[in-house]
């Protein structure tokens, strides 16, 4: 197994450059990443690195208002600019049939606003110019006359009788309801459980609007060839095959003439799941200009107009009887912005929010979700999250903590009493999920041990006596990731399955093509390791191909931690198909029957005579040679697979945070963070730990810093990284990681997803820690605050003036 190169020793990667073989595990284990080679040299190929002959540049004019009627648009001065090739507005798109586009949630969204602008920085006009600076200049030459309308930026006011109607474009729409109230669980049973309860806590908990903010913003290079009708799209997105299908439907283009090329992507985190108006503009611009068009949004455009996350107002009650949690009910008011483009499987209008019972064996639960339109940007994407599970876990973990202090029970003790027990798996939850596996008590204990939990509580008391504020927060999450089984889950009618295509070449080297789309997750390494584990070929001899819809099998991409659960399943299955074919060929080579052969990593051998066997590379060579194949078997050593997961996988984890709060300023410092994750079998522990580090950091940001907010006129006031704060190295603690391994019983390699778990578990953990600190400091008077726990909000909460984020 590869190990870290000790400082001072010759580095393995330099040895590679000389053509020597890197020490790599033939299968799972720590292995340095293959994709690093180009990135550390500055040779990645991101969207802005794409250069095509004759390429021109696009820019978008955006609305300065949250809600306004468009009275007129005059583009004549912009068109007179010597370097402007085209200016496109809504009426031009109407002639192409592209003025409106469907969203992921069966709503429609204006590509360019024609009648009204419905959110701040909505797209109004698209300029194509010879260079990027001139395109920006031309935006200033477009004159738009607006009649400003009152804006709704507070979901609680969206259904007021006097609220302005935002979606007057929708036939029959008479109010700002975005979708009918959706519910899960058993209301009557839940009412009975609450009636019999010993203790009930009630909280209004807000998971505020935030933004995934990948470091590379969104954009596209659209290249429509007028002679051939071939449309090549360069675009960093998380689901290239699904995007291709959507473009075929929206633009009426034949799907086989659309090719999407996702090269390297500078982060996604859910932000690069949707199709944005700018993409359609770039395609339209290329059609109109007859040249490739590059459009890349700036940071403000990314923050203000592209997919936000959360924005859930959750009224909740949790109850206990006999010292354990028995019931939960929650009514959610969801703010979907001006167009409903929330990202989730079609049959789940509130995503997987109804996993809200968390890790607990409850008698009953019930939840409702009501979604409204507001004059805010559309989105509702899963920011490092599996379809609203982040909101669900935030809610349940905040409620458990609140209930524990109400009962005067240690919050870990209440969790331990209420956890689903190991022998209850597979476990049917009160809202209809089937959790696959787990030993929650064990994982919680590992976290307590790393943290030194009892000593921490003691330290907290000692500090409190000196007037210092120290808070300890807990979260125990269960996620459901890897959507999903085709009988339950689709997006726009597309089953949430993934394909894999594996070709072993005559020399025994292989190429595996996958439909998952890395945005930094390390697929080129870990998927090679899956093939290596199954076939015994070195991962260095396996190329993972992705990001080109012409050359990879169909599948729904990478989000909701689905890469390993779904695409990883496909890669394992396709490897086993190749192994099975290799067995038939080996039997022919060894002049025996397939059933007389046994497998050890890398070769089939004759049972009872291990010396007689055929290695996979010899089998590969034979399969392409002139030698006779077994009866009925085609030559070559390759296979295809489409993996339909039988269930989601259910990773879980126990997190403990320690914070220090400045009593004078309200500044919160996250001093320690202990994360014990159980994601089943770990393919590459180094990559898993890296995913956890990153997810925890995004959780630190959401808990302490991040908020997308609006003024009363509808202006987004977090339009740059000066106002939308993300954690730097100084805000993040040295994360302390631990692990337990409970293999997923239904996954081909026993793995569960992990990318999003840390971002799901950490926001409630840190928020609980802040509230815990304030609770102790105020002798129990302060028992609630909402994220983000920035200094101003924390200080206000400390004074007893906690306010909802707005």
């Amino acid at each position, binding site marked *: 197994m590869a190990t*870290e*190169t000790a*400082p*001072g*020793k*010759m*580095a393995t*990667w*330099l040895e590679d*450059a000389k053509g020597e073989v890197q020490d790599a595990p033939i299968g799972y284990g720590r292995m*340095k*990443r293959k994709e*690093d*080679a*180009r*990135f*550390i*040299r*500055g040779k*990645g190929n*991101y969207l*802005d*690195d794409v250069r095509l002959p004759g390429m021109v540049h696009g820019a978008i004019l955006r609305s300065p208002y949250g809600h306004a009627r468009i009275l007129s648009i005059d583009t004549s001065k912009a068109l007179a600019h010597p370097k402007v090739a085209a200016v496109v507005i809504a009426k031009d798109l109407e002639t192409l049939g592209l003025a409106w586009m469907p969203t992921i949630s069966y709503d429609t969204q204006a590509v360019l606003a024609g009648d009204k602008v419905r959110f701040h920085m909505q797209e109004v006009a698209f300029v194509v110019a010879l260079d990027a*600076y001139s395109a920006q200049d031309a935006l200033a030459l477009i004159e738009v006359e607006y009649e400003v309308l009152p804006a709704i930026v507070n979901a609680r006011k969206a259904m007021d009788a006097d609220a302005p109607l935002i979606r007057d474009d929708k036939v029959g729409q008479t109010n700002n309801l975005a979708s009918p109230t959706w519910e899960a669980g058993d209301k009557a049973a839940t009412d009975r459980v609450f009636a019999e309860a010993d203790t009930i806590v009630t909280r209004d908990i807000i998971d505020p609007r935030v933004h995934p903010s*990948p*470091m*590379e*913003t969104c954009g596209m290079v659209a290249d429509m060839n007028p002679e051939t009708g071939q449309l090549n799209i360069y675009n960093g997105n998380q689901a290239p095959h699904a995007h291709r299908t959507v473009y075929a439907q929206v633009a009426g283009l034949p799907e086989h003439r659309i090719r999407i090329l996702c090269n*390297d*992507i*500078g*982060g996604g*985190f859910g932000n690069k799941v949707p199709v944005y108006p700018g993409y359609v503009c770039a395609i339209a611009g290329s059609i109109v200009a007859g040249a490739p068009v590059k459009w890349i949004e*700036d*940071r*403000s455009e990314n923050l203000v107009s592209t997919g936000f996350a959360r924005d859930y107002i959750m009224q909740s009650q949790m109850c206990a009887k006999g010292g354990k949690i028995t019931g939960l009910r929650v009514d959610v008011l969801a703010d979907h912005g001006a167009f409903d483009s929330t990202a989730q499987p079609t049959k789940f209008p509130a995503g997987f929010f109804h996993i809200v019972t968390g890790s607990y064996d409850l008698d009953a639960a019930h939840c409702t979700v009501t979604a409204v339109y507001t004059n805010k940007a559309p989105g509702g994407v899963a920011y490092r999250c599996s379809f609203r599970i982040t909101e669900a876990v935030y809610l349940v973990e905040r409620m458990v903590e609140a209930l524990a202090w109400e009962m005067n029970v240690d919050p870990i003790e209440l969790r331990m009493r209420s956890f689903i027990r190991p022998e209850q798996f597979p476990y049917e939850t009160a809202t209809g999920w089937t959790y696959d596996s787990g030993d929650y008590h064990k994982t919680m204990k590992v976290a307590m041990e790393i943290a030194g939990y009892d000593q921490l509580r003691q330290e907290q008391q000692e500090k409190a006596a000196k007037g210092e504020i120290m808070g300890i927060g807990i979260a125990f999450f269960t996620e459901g990731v890897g959507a999903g089984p085709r009988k339950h889950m689709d997006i726009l009618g597309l089953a949430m399955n993934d394909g894999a295509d594996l070709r072993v070449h005559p020399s025994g080297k292989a190429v595996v093509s996958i439909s998952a789309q890395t*945005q*930094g*997750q*390390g697929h080129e390494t870990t998927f090679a390791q899956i093939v290596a584990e199954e076939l015994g070929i070195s991962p260095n001899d396996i190329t993972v191909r992705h990001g080109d819809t012409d050359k990879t099998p169909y599948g729904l991409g990478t989000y909701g931690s689905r890469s390993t659960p779904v695409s990883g399943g496909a890669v394992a299955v396709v490897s086993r198909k190749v192994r099975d074919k290799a067995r038939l060929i080996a039997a022919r080579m060894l002049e025996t029957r397939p059933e007389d052969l046994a497998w050890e990593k890398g070769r089939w051998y004759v049972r009872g005579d291990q010396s007689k066997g055929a290695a996979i590379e010899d089998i590969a060579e034979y399969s392409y040679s002139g030698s006779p194949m077994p009866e009925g078997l085609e030559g070559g050593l390759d296979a295809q697979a489409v993996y339909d997961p039988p269930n989601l996988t259910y990773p879980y984890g126990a997190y403990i945070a320690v914070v220090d709060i400045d009593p004078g300023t309200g500044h919160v410092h996250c001093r320690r963070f202990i994360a014990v994750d159980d994601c089943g079998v770990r393919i590459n522990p*180094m*990559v898993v730990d*890296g995913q*956890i*580090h*990153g*997810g*925890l*950091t*995004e959780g630190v940001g959401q808990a302490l810093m991040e908020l997308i907010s609006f003024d009363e006129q509808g202006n987004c006031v977090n339009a*740059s*990284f*000066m106002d939308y704060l*993300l954690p*730097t*190295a*100084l805000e*993040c603690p*040295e*994360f302390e990681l631990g692990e337990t391994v409970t293999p997923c019983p239904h996954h081909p390699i026993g793995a569960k997803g992990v990318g999003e778990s840390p971002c799901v578990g950490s926001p409630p953990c840190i928020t609980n820690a802040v509230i815990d600190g304030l609770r102790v400091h105020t002798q129990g008077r302060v028992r609630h605050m909402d994220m983000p726990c920035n200094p101003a909000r924390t200080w206000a909460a400390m004074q007893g003036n906690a306010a909802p984020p707005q």
Partner: protein
Amino acid sequence: MLVSMSINGQTHSHDVEPRMLLVHYIREMAELHGTHWGCDTSNCGICVVLMDGDPIKSCTTLAAMAEGHEITTVEGLEKNGVLDPIQQGFHEMHALQCGFCTPGMMVTGRALIDQHPNPTQMTDYEIREAISGGLCRCTGYVNIVKAIRWAAAYEAAAATGGN
């Protein structure tokens, strides 16, 4: 206006608009795509390059301000086919995932080691403060700190013949 500068030891001279940003000069004129752009407001550090050895944000520096200066970008780290220890350290310690912030982080780490009186004795706080002008959404910074430390240790060992 004519703007000349040295980038990775090579002289570049181009007639550009006075408003052209250094990041665009590097990417479009010098055609070095390893330096990325991230935010426009000096907050994210994606665009960091070295000017005369000091890290600067090239998205808020005009190309004209670099006139006559020595610029080092990520492409200037590897010499004669041998990676700079900072590049090796990022690979060894898994200090990159999507790779977009990596060039800025690596040159920042390079400058920190070059300017620190005793690189093997750098505190975590010193390293974290040095990279706090940059944002990374993938790594949580833990492994970036380790990577910079790895490079410092590697260089110290190499200097004493410990290779």
